[in-house]
């Protein structure tokens, strides 16, 4: 991964407390898995930034290397990699996601 891509990722996860690397945008997701996480965050009324990896091929590949995770979407909260769709969905369903947001002092609908 080139330095420019690394810097871009670091900037995104530093500037947005909740940052979702996804295919498409929160309003127009291009993949069901990206849509799923986006919708969960919307239901919880979490303020998040969606970063569309389809607009940047080096970001699309770079984020996989950065997180050592082979798939997209990828959710970052306070610079910490939380997981992909399956993990976030499981956390959403068992209440761990709310607890995690609380611990990280992110506001959401209780």
């Amino acid at each position, binding site marked *: 991964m080139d330095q420019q891509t690394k810097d871009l990722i670091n900037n995104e996860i530093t500037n947005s407390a909740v940052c979702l690397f996804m295919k498409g945008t929160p309003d127009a997701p291009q993949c069901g898995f990206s849509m799923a996480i986006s919708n969960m965050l919307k239901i919880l009324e979490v303020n998040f930034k969606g970063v569309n990896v389809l607009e940047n091929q080096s970001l699309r590949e770079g984020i*996989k290397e950065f997180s050592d995770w082979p798939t997209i979407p990828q959710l970052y909260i306070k610079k910490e*990699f939380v997981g*992909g*769709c*399956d*993990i976030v969905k499981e956390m959403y369903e068992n209440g761990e996601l709310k607890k995690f947001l609380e611990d990280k002092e992110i506001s959401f609908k209780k």
Partner: protein
Amino acid sequence: MAMNLKDIEKHIKEGLPDAIVKIEDLAGDGNHYSATVTSKEFSGKSKIEQHKMVYNSLKGKMGNELHALAIKTKE
């Protein structure tokens, strides 16, 4: 290029020999699967680490030949 169900199961079992693997072809298109993997190896590991172990057993096929594999891990 798609992978068939048996190949996915074989790879996961090679990576995690004690695993009980249940795979479903979600859309019937040979491209969207779900895998439920139960292994003692997951004990004491975070969900991220557990899923990475499954991804590692697929040796780089995830995200390439294998487009969509929903993973659920159990200890």
